[in-house]
C-alpha cells in the first residue's frame, strides 16, 4: 500500500496536490531539539564564568562537554534528511547569502570552532598537560595530541588561558543566542507559512532552548552523581531548579504572547490554525507541550524550589525535592520535544491554501524513520560518555592532578 495514498485518504478539506507528501519529518524535529540543548547547556555554563554563579560550578565542565556532544550529533539529523547528503558540502562552497539555511555552515562552524572547542581546550589544557605527564599508553598520546603541543603551564600561560577563556565565554553567549535564534529564524522567516512566520519564533526558540538545556544539565548532573555514588550537591540542584523555573516563566510568557497576538490579530489563517490546534495537535500541543511540559513543571518547581521563597513554598526533604526536580526536568524534555514537533510537523499539517488539514505518517525504518531519530537522540549520550572518559569533568580529577587520571 502506497503510504501517500493512505495520507490522501485522511486529508480533510482541500490541500494542494503537492502537499500530500510532508517534507520535513521527524529528523527535522530532532535537529532543533538537539541544537536547543546545545545552546541551553552552554548558556548554563556561561552563568558560572560570566555571572559567577558559584552554586552551579559543579556543572560547568559537564555542561561544556554535553554541549559539544549534542553539537556534534545535531547536524547528522540534517544530513540524514537531505535528498543528497553527499552534496551537503556545497553549502560551504557556494553559500547563497540570501538564504537563512546557508548561514548554517557559518553559524555552526563559528560555534563549534571558535566557541565550544576553544573554550573546552583552554579550560582543559593545563589538566591535559598534567594528565599526559602521569599517564601511559593511548590516553597519554590522546591527551598529548589534544594539547596541540602547547604544553606551557607556567603561571603566565595559565593566566592567558583563564583570560582567553573568559573572553571566549563572553563571545559565546551571543553566539549561543545566535545558534538557536538562527534555527528559529529558519522557520520564523518563511512568509508562506502563517504558523511559522512570526518575529517571536526565534526568541521563543531561544528561551525554550535555555529551558531544555538547564533541565538536561540538571538531569545529567543528578544521574552522574548517582552513578558515581557521590553526594548530590543540593545547593547546586536548588540553584539549577530556580534558574529552570525563571527560564520557564519567560518561555511560557513568550509563548502565551505569541498565542494571544495571533488570536487578537485573527488574520485569514486563524480558522485553519485553530482547527489544527484542536484536532491534529491537541495531544502534542495542549496536553504534552502546554500542560505536562509547562504548567505542571511550573507548579512543581515554583512550589518546591527556592525560586520564589528561600525555603520553597512547600518545604520538602532533600531526597524528595531532588526527585521532584528530576521529574520536572523529564516532563520539560517531553514538553520541549513536543514544542519542536508542533512547530516543525504542525507547520506542515495544514495546507497553504488554508482550506484543509493533512496527516503525518511516521515511518519506522529507513533514514527518515523512528529508529534513526531514536538513535540520534541516544548518540549524544554515548558521545558524552566518551568525552567524559577522555576529559573527566569531575572536580576530583581537576583538583588532584597528581593522582592517576580518571576516577
Amino acid at each position, binding site marked *: 500500500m502506497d503510504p501517500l495514498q493512505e495520507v490522501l485518504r485522511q486529508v480533510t478539506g482541500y490541500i494542494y496536490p503537492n502537499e500530500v507528501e510532508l517534507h520535513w519529518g521527524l529528523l527535522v524535529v530532532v535537529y532543533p531539539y538537539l541544537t536547543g540543548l546545545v545552546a541551553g547547556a552552554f548558556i548554563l555554563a556561561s552563568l558560572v564564568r560570566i555571572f559567577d554563579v558559584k552554586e552551579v560550578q559543579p556543572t560547568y565542565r559537564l555542561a561544556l562537554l554535553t554541549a559539544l556532544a549534542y553539537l556534534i550529533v545535531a547536524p547528522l539529523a540534517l544530513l540524514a534528511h537531505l535528498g543528497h547528503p553527499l552534496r551537503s558540502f556545497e553549502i560551504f562552497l557556494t553559500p547563497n547569502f540570501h538564504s537563512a539555511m546557508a548561514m548554517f555552515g557559518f553559524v555552526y562552524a563559528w560555534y563549534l570552532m571558535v566557541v565550544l572547542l576553544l573554550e573546552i581546550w583552554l579550560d582543559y589544557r593545563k589538566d591535559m598537560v598534567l594528565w599526559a605527564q602521569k599517564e601511559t599508553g593511548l590516553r597519554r598520546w590522546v591527551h598529548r595530541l589534544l594539547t596541540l603541543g602547547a604544553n606551557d603551564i607556567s603561571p603566565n600561560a595559565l593566566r592567558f588561558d583563564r583570560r582567553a577563556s573568559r573572553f571566549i565565554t563572553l563571545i559565546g553567549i551571543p553566539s549561543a543566542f545566535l545558534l538557536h535564534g538562527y534555527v528559529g529564524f*529558519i522557520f520564523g522567516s518563511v512568509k508562506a507559512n502563517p504558523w511559522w512566520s512570526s518575529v517571536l519564533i526565534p526568541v521563543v526558540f531561544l528561551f525554550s532552548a535555555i529551558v531544555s538545556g538547564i533541565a538536561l544539565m540538571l538531569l545529567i548532573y543528578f544521574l552522574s552523581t548517582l552513578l558515581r555514588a557521590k553526594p548530590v550537591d543540593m545547593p547546586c540542584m536548588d540553584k539549577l531548579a530556580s534558574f529552570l523555573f525563571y527560564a520557564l516563566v519567560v518561555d511560557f510568557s513568550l509563548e502565551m504572547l505569541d498565542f494571544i497576538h495571533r488570536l487578537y490579530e485573527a488574520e485569514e489563517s486563524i480558522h485553519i490554525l485553530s482547527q489544527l490546534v484542536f484536532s491534529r495537535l491537541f495531544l502534542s500541543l495542549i496536553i504534552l507541550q502546554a500542560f505536562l511540559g509547562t504548567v505542571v513543571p511550573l507548579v512543581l518547581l515554583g512550589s518546591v524550589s527556592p525560586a520564589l521563597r528561600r525555603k520553597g513554598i512547600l518545604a520538602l526533604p532533600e531526597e524528595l525535592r531532588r526527585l521532584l526536580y528530576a521529574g520536572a526536568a523529564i516532563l520539560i524534555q517531553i514538553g520541549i520535544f513536543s514544542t519542536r514537533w508542533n512547530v516543525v510537523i504542525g507547520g506542515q499539517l495544514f495546507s*497553504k491554501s488554508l482550506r484543509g488539514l493533512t496527516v503525518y505518517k511516521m515511518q519506522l525504518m529507513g533514514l527518515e524513520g523512528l529508529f534513526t531519530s531514536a538513535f540520534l537522540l541516544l548518540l549524544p549520550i554515548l558521545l558524552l560518555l566518551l568525552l567524559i572518559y577522555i576529559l573527566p569533568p569531575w572536580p576530583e580529577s581537576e583538583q588532584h592532578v597528581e593522582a592517576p587520571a580518571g576516577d
Partner: protein
Amino acid sequence: MDDSKHISPPADQPASESRREFLHTFSLAAPLLLLGLRISAIEALAAEPDAAYNAREHYYGMGIDVSKCIGCGRCADACKNENDVPREPYYFRTWVERYVIGADGETDVDSPNGGIGGFASKIPEKEILRTFFVPKLCNQCTDPPCVQVCPVGATFATEDGVVLVDNDYCIGCRYCIQACPYGARFLDPRTHTANKCTFCYHRVVKGLLPACVEVCPTGARVFGDLRQHNSPLARFTRFNKIMTLKPHLNTKPKVFYAQLDEEVR
C-alpha cells in the same frame, strides 16, 4: 506592476515571432506546396540555431483567463507528458482546481489527480452561488521566496525571468518547497531533488509554446514575452483587470489571472 515589464520592445523582432509568421504564411500555402512532401517538422525547428537565443531579450509571463477554463485538465496531462513528471497524484507542475461556492457561503475546492482525469460531475447538494475552475502552476515570481531560501544556489531565476532547478546541484533539503506559498514545488521521488514548472523552458527558447498553453483548447492560458508590446499576453494584460495570487506576500508573480475570485488562494 514592475517597471521592467514596460521596457519598449527590442528594435528587431525576436526570431521566434518571425518564425511563427513564416510558419503561418507557410501553412496557408501548404496545400499547394506540400502535398506528398514529408519534411520533418523537427528539421524545420532545428533550422533556428540555439545560439541565436539571447535570454536578455526576453522576460516571460503567463496570463490565465479563469472564465475560459473548462476544467478539462489537458494542461496538467500535457505537462506530465512533456516534462516527464511522475504520474502519481502527488506530483504536479500544474493542476486545475474546481471551486464551488454555495449560497450558504461555504466554499468547496477539489482537484482530483490535478484534474487530469476530468472532474466527476457531481449533482450539487446545495444551491450554487458561483463556480469556476482555476489552473495553477508556478507563478514564476519576480521575487521568488524559493530562490531566496535555497542554501546552495540550486534554484535560481534565469535572465529571462524563469525560475529553474539545477538537478545536479540540488541537495534535497526541501527548504524551497516550504518557502513556496503556492504549493508549486515537489520533491521528485526518482532524483530526490526539487522539481517545478519551468514554463517549458526547453520549448520556449526554441520559439514553441509551453505544453500547457499549446494544448489548452479554449485559450484560457496565454503565454508571452512581457517585453514585447504586441503579443497575445500584451493584449491580455491590457484588456483585463489582472490579479495575482497571494499578492500580500509581495512575491510579484508573473502569472496573471483575469476574472480571479477572492476565494482563490
